[in-house]
């Protein structure tokens, strides 16, 4: 039982980070039909912004702030202006290919400008453990879980309880009607890119002490978040959260109780089952297209 609790908390913490990244995926898709295959690299990069700032002498808190701001500007604003806006007019597919190219560029750039070697990354809380019913629960896992949940709640509040959030939702649901109603659609779309910049920065700060900061981190994170978004429902923020949590827990429990050799296969089995039985995702909406 102690082992189970331990694995559950650890899986929840990892799943919560996947959820943050997956939420960014769904936000961009809903507002601008952007499928960002560089999302994993977007999570990898802020850690290097922070480490670079620390190398220049900034304390961790200041470096984190700089990393957050750079993420918003580079991965939010510049991404939209330089990649998304020029490519989107040619359709979704050219944009998808552009984001794949961007992911390769970011990965290699992080390697060339920083290092190919993994770097230790400071943890937000000390590496101490709590003993809960015989289970050793890391304070780090609990902190990750708490911050991820707080971030999701804040986002939920923004989207559902504020005028700005409702305008963003209106933009996502029907941009033409939103524009007629006087909502500045372009600005709302930009806000979602900026929010994605914040989400990936938070995910990066949470995951890097565990994964270590490395230029290849985006590969696994991007795939995990993409799977989470599809399993949960690509057009629903709450679906992405559910998908992320399912993947995190499934990974840990399957490796411990089923087979560590086939742990990578279990999320794909779930994905296939979802596609066959509920193609819109566990919490997703059915979208119809007409010609």
């Amino acid at each position, binding site marked *: 039982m102690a082992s189970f609790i331990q694995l559950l908390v650890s899986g929840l913490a990892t799943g919560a980070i996947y959820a943050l990244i997956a939420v960014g995926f769904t936000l961009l898709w809903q507002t601008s039909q952007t499928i960002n295959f560089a999302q994993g690299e977007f999570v990898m990069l802020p850690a290097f912004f922070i480490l670079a700032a620390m190398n220049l002498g900034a304390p961790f808190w200041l470096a984190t702030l700089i990393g957050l701001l750079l993420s918003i500007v580079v991965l939010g604003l510049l991404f939209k202006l330089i990649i998304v806006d020029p490519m989107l007019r040619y359709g979704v597919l050219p944009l998808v290919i552009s984001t794949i190219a961007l992911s390769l560029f970011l990965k290699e750039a992080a*390697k060339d400008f920083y*290092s*190919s070697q993994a770097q*230790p990354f400071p943890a937000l809380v000390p*590496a101490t453990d709590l003993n809960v019913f015989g289970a*050793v629960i890391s304070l780090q896992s609990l902190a990750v879980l708490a911050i991820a949940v707080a971030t999701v709640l804040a986002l939920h509040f923004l989207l559902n309880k504020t005028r700005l959030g409702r305008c963003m939702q209106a933009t996502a649901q029907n941009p033409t009607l939103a524009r007629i109603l006087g909502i500045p659609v372009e600005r709302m779309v930009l806000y979602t890119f900026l929010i994605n910049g914040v989400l990936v920065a938070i995910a990066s700060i949470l995951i890097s002490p565990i994964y*270590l900061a490395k230029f290849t981190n985006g*590969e696994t994170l991007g795939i995990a978040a993409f799977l989470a978004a599809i399993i949960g429902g690509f057009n629903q923020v709450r679906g992405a959260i559910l998908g992320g949590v399912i993947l995190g827990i499934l990974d*840990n429990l399957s490796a411990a109780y089923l087979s*560590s050799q086939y742990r990578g296969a279990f999320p794909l089995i779930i994905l296939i089952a979802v596609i066959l039985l509920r193609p819109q995702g566990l919490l997703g909406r059915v979208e119809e297209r007409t010609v």
Partner: protein
Amino acid sequence: MSRSGLFAAVVAAGLGFTSPVLAQSTVYIPAILELSGAGAVSGTNFRDGMLMAIDEINGKGGILGRKIETPVLDTQSDAGISRAQLQKVLDNKPYVVIGPVFSGSVLVDMALTQQAEIPEIVGGEAAAITQKGGTYVFRTSFGQQFSMPKIANYIRDGIKAKTVAVLWVNNDFGKGGRDTFVKEMAARNIKVVADVSTESGQADFSADVVKIKAANADAIFVYVNEEESARFLREAKKQGIKAPLLGETTLLGQKVIDLAQGAADGVRGHVGLTVDAPIPAVQQFGEKFKKRFNYVCDHNGIKGYTAVYMIKHVTEKIGKFDSKAFAQAAHGMTITPKDEPGILMEATWDKNGDIDRESFLGEVVNGKQKIVATLPKLGK
């Protein structure tokens, strides 16, 4: 030069051919290495050690008066890409090929170099590399069939373990090591009570540590790559693993120690190559490397460095750039630091291309690797 030869040279020059074969002032020794992807740390270390040796040799006039020309091609840590890159360089008729480091890529590439009769100096450690009857592949570090008996003896005689848990990475390197290790354990009547496979690049080891802890083994043998070693050690410390943690070079390297942030203390194991070896030439190499590249060299850096000096020494012995003669001469050759200082430690290559030299038992003490014993060459 005959009229036809002169004509060919003029035509070649006119067409702008820059084939390395035609450039007689240089010798073409391309390197195929893991510069990106999961093996980037290993490949980059190997490359930097290799470049150091090339610069030193070229600075002194090269090999037999010819400068070494070494383009470095990236395998992206992918066996298929490695093979494609090798095919590309083989078209230019290299003298010798250096790399790759990943065993999976070596196993794919070696058939091509065998067919082309071009010697390949590799960094791979999987036992299978030198068990396929190839005559053109040469190691720069121990194969697992050489290193595992050493660690197995230590587990039996030093730790006096009756049961052992093994954690390994599911790639050619890890699988080969795991299979050889399990065989060595069986030969010593030590029971493997947990056999846990992990993935290359795995980040979360909590489930694996839970399984290993539940097995309650006398010792735990860890055979994964460097970064995964660090992540595993941190999780093992978090979950309070008490059994001795043992491993190979990939568990005791300084990079692992730094990344593990205190969780590596007490780890013990067999170290084939290390800049902390109690050998002045190796330590001096480590200092030069750090000064030039600003990071601590791991065992792959030593492999890259000694690979080039091995090529130099064998070539000077045969007195010509002849790939077939190189392969024949290198089998059974012993190179001592007295004959070739760049080789750093006396090394012998057997008929299969396996290397034999001294190795070490190490322990991590206060965040530093400490060599506690020097193990002689197996052939002594």
